[in-house]
């Protein structure tokens, strides 16, 4: 469904991605793990068109997105949704307006239909009746759930999650993990997650890839990664200090 071929990206002379190759199948939960600062967010931002790669290709359903115009990206983004690391909710709006934002701008739905869709999405993430709450009134976990509701509102083909459990307590982290699995099953979207939360990766992931020094050094099912003989993967999975 999504293919990343030999992707390179640098910033001010510092090479962050050094030829990343990935293949994400339809309907799976693909997780990229790796230490902080290895370029996981850069990889995600290249995949959703927020950054342009220096070299390499990104293909979605066989369509080459590398060098795609803004109009082409607008077309593709109707099928993409992103849940950002710090939720990125619009704090000048309430919860309902946040979830309705994309529906108002990317669909021709009537006001009543939008209200219904917002209600349904909030109910799916366990936030029934939260439409009128201000963003500042929400806890970190609630904000993540609103961000997920905003993402699923448009029935996307792919949901990209950037560190979805960062900053959450272990219970809320487990709740978000379960929610990601639930969304994947109920909506049938493909999920792409970048994280260093191993519990999330091994619980939710159907395929896990490890990014290290700008390259994917290991890809496989969770068990394969757990039993990997690669010393860098072992060190990360077992949490061995430097």
């Amino acid at each position, binding site marked *: 469904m999504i293919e990343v071929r030999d992707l390179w990206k640098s910033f001010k002379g510092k090479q962050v991605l050094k030829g990343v190759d990935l293949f994400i199948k339809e309907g799976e939960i693909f997780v990229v793990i790796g230490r902080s600062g290895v370029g996981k967010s850069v990889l995600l931002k290249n995949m959703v*068109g927020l950054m342009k790669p220096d070299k390499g290709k990104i293909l979605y359903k066989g369509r080459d997105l590398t060098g795609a115009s803004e109009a082409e990206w607008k077309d593709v983004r109707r099928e993409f949704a*992103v849940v950002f690391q*710090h939720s*990125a*909710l619009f*704090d000048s709006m309430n919860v309902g307006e946040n979830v309705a*934002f994309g529906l108002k701008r990317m669909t021709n739905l009537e006001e009543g239909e939008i209200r219904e869709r917002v209600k349904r999405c909030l109910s799916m993430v366990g936030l029934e009746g939260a439409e009128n709450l201000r963003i500042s009134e929400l806890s970190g976990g609630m904000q993540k759930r609103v961000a997920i509701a905003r993402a699923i509102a448009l029935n996307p083909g792919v949901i990209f999650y950037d560190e979805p459990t960062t900053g959450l307590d272990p219970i809320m982290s487990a709740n978000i993990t379960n929610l990601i699995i639930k969304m994947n099953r109920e909506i049938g979207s493909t999920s792409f997650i970048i994280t260093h939360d191993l519990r999330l990766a091994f619980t939710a992931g159907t395929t896990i890839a490890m990014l290290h020094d700008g390259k994917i050094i290991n890809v496989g099912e969770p068990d394969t990664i757990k039993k990997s003989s690669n010393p860098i993967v072992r060190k990360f999975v077992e949490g061995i200090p430097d």
Partner: protein
Amino acid sequence: MISEFIEELGAIFILTWKTIVAVFNGEGEWREILRQMVRVGVESVPVVTLTTAFAGMVLALNSYIGFSRMGAGDYTGSVVGVALAKELIPVLTGIVIAGRVGAAITAEIGTMKVSEQIDALYTLNTDPVSYLVLPRFIASIFMLPVLTLYGDGIGNLGAYFVAVYVMKVNPIIYNQYLYMYLEPWDIFTGLIKAFSFGAIIAAVGCYKGLSTEGGAEGVGKATTSSVVISSITILIADFIWGKILPWTLRG
């Protein structure tokens, strides 16, 4: 340093151009434009009132002292009226709005940038230029002249109060010279300047917000820089207008 400044100036011009194109493409939402007009215009009335009233009062006080030494104290109204309308009110209003509104624009957009809300807008197929910049730009270029016109009135009232009630200038003579020497062009010149100052405040404020990097520190730096650049650019633009608008040199 100079190359960075030129690069930044170029980027501000590009953003302004994109905004103008978006205006002509009919982008932007009326509700948001009106909301920004209230923020820039209505909410700035108290600070503009205070600034322009005291500017008029101080100018009248010092003009009277200077002129009375030459026995021309009765001419205070004419000089104060022209100076306020052409220079002081537009520039002071511009600088005050740069501090109040320009800073708020940069802080708001800058916070959105560092908290990935701008990225979220892109992923929701929303162009930040038409969604964020355009309403602020239109609100600033239309509300600055309105505030300036209001400031002209308040400034002249302040000047009249000091000249007539404090310095004891004859009110009939004061008004006679004011209306004799203050031309509509003087007021119009000030309004043209205010229109351009509005564009400067919005363009610099939005550009600085959209180019903010880092966290809270980055937002703070961007906000400071926005106010400094806007204020200096307003003063430079005022001088340029003084040169290129031939009627500003009249009288």
